[in-house]
């Protein structure tokens, strides 16, 4: 089975016309995904994923060394659900708001029912009486699967450039 390429460069496997057809679907998905996170409705977040999904957040350093560790490492939507519930109901942390800024998605390939894509993100964090800071920046590496007219994530690898994280990462990216 082919796996997502998390470092280095490989040319897109779809032509410009096909990429232009797929890009709005992916873009719509990503905008809605981030709207849920930025509004703080964390328990809604797992519904963007397929049941048998992979979700991982890891540093570019790990991706380049082909190391498997994740700041968050989840196999399957139930694990995402558990994380969302833990964060929204049980965890202790200072109140904060998050804002995602996204680039246009890059369509990397189309494999059967799957769309492979990338998207750069910037994640801003704002604490009480703190400045708005650049908390994380990097790239989503995604495998989408079609679900009727919509998409679901079968895999989202969140690679972050920022090598030293300011204190912690509370919410999903």
């Amino acid at each position, binding site marked *: 089975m082919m796996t997502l390429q998390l470092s280095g460069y490989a040319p897109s496997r779809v032509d410009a016309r096909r990429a232009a057809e797929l890009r709005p679907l992916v873009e719509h998905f990503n905008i809605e995904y981030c709207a849920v996170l930025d509004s703080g409705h964390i328990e809604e977040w797992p519904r963007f994923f397929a049941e048998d999904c992979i979700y991982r957040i890891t540093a570019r350093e790990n991706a380049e060394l082909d190391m498997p560790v994740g700041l968050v490492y989840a196999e399957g939507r139930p694990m995402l659900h558990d994380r969302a519930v833990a964060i929204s109901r049980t965890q202790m*942390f200072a109140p904060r708001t998050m804002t995602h800024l996204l680039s246009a998605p890059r369509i990397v390939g189309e494999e059967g029912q799957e769309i492979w894509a990338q998207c750069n993100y910037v994640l801003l964090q704002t604490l009480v009486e703190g400045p708005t800071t650049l908390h994380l920046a990097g790239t989503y590496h995604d495998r989408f699967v079609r679900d009727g007219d919509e998409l679901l994530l079968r895999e989202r690898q969140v690679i972050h450039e920022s090598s030293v994280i300011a204190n912690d990462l509370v919410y999903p990216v």
Partner: protein
Amino acid sequence: MYKNQEILDYTVGAKNRPADDYAWPADDHLIPDWVYTSQSVYEREMERIFKGRSWNFVALEAEIPNPGDYKRSYVGPVPVVVSRADDGSIHVFENRCAHRGAEFCRSSRGHAKEFVCPYHQWSYDLKGNLQGIPFKRGVNKQGGMPREFRNEDHGLLKLRVTTRHGVVFASYSADVEPLEEYLTPEILKDFDVVFPGKPLRILGYYKNELPCNWKMYHENLKDPYHATLLHSFLVVFGLLVAGNDSAMIADPVHHRHGTMASAKKEDKYAAVSEENKKEMRSFHDGMRLQDDRFLEFVKEFDSPWSVTMQTIWPNLVVQREMNTLGVRQIVPNGPHSMLMIWTMFGYEDDTPEMTRHRLRQGNLMGPAGFLGLEDNEAMKFVQEGVRRSSLDTNVVKLDAGNVGTATSLISEAAIRGMYRYYREVMGWEKA
């Protein structure tokens, strides 16, 4: 260098005086705020503790398996390079060119035949000896180094190195005791459970900056009291509740190292008595996970404990949280900040499924871990609190009178033990 952007960045003047202006509180059950906030105290710590008679963690051998492999690291806040020479020996030297001071090694890790400072291309071998100086004899018999210049007098600043079962330590001290004696048998016992000498497999890295004093991280892991209160995750899912078999072990010589240990009950979820529930605000009755695979404990160690968190003075934490293993290196960064560099690992002989289990369980720890992030938040709150407030002492009276090892989780004896040693090394008289 790595400080978060802050708006409120102020320390009360009385808490930032010269170290000699302070006296230690007469009562051993109090810790003065200035140990966390004074720049002068911090500088004395760097000299007497990190550069003093201590062994500092710098690397795992699995990170530099072959001759020529190297990694950047730190001893205290000082950048060092850990390198493996052609004869297989490991060397640690400051990351500062002996010529004009450039921090010459810029990659986190890599492989090299020699180290060359990019500024004037002075070159050093893998043991830190000065090899070559361009134009050492000048050009056309003009310029160049004086006749008496000897390369061997101008190598990189080298540290002493020792290893145990694949863990590499370095020291500035010429007379620090051997590592085994430094750690004591009580601490070695659980250290050797994680590091029995079998080959490790590195699973990856986390790095974060905690806006708190470096000692708070030691204290947090010598404070079993917080674990059942702050960490609802532990409590809800029965990983640690007041009443589990547990221990807070301090090394019997100086109380500077510690092992916080607990044994998980067979049931996945906790049974908590009505009496204890009332004491624990974070307890959520009836919470269940949809996927509880990551609470599984594969009994892979010959140890009564399912969890051991070891603090090894002054800069190492060894994490064995059930099956998720890691070392955390503390890099002090001024009184108000520290870097934490996490290296997560398993063993070479792990099955692919065991590796995935370790990765899943890794969600408990790290900068986004269910436990990790709460600790980081709490310590940030403490640093902000002690810097800007009027009160000036921390109260550590639980299990009063006892110092060092504690049999109860509701104890601050290990914290008091650490500070008894700290006060002696730092040279303060009691008020």
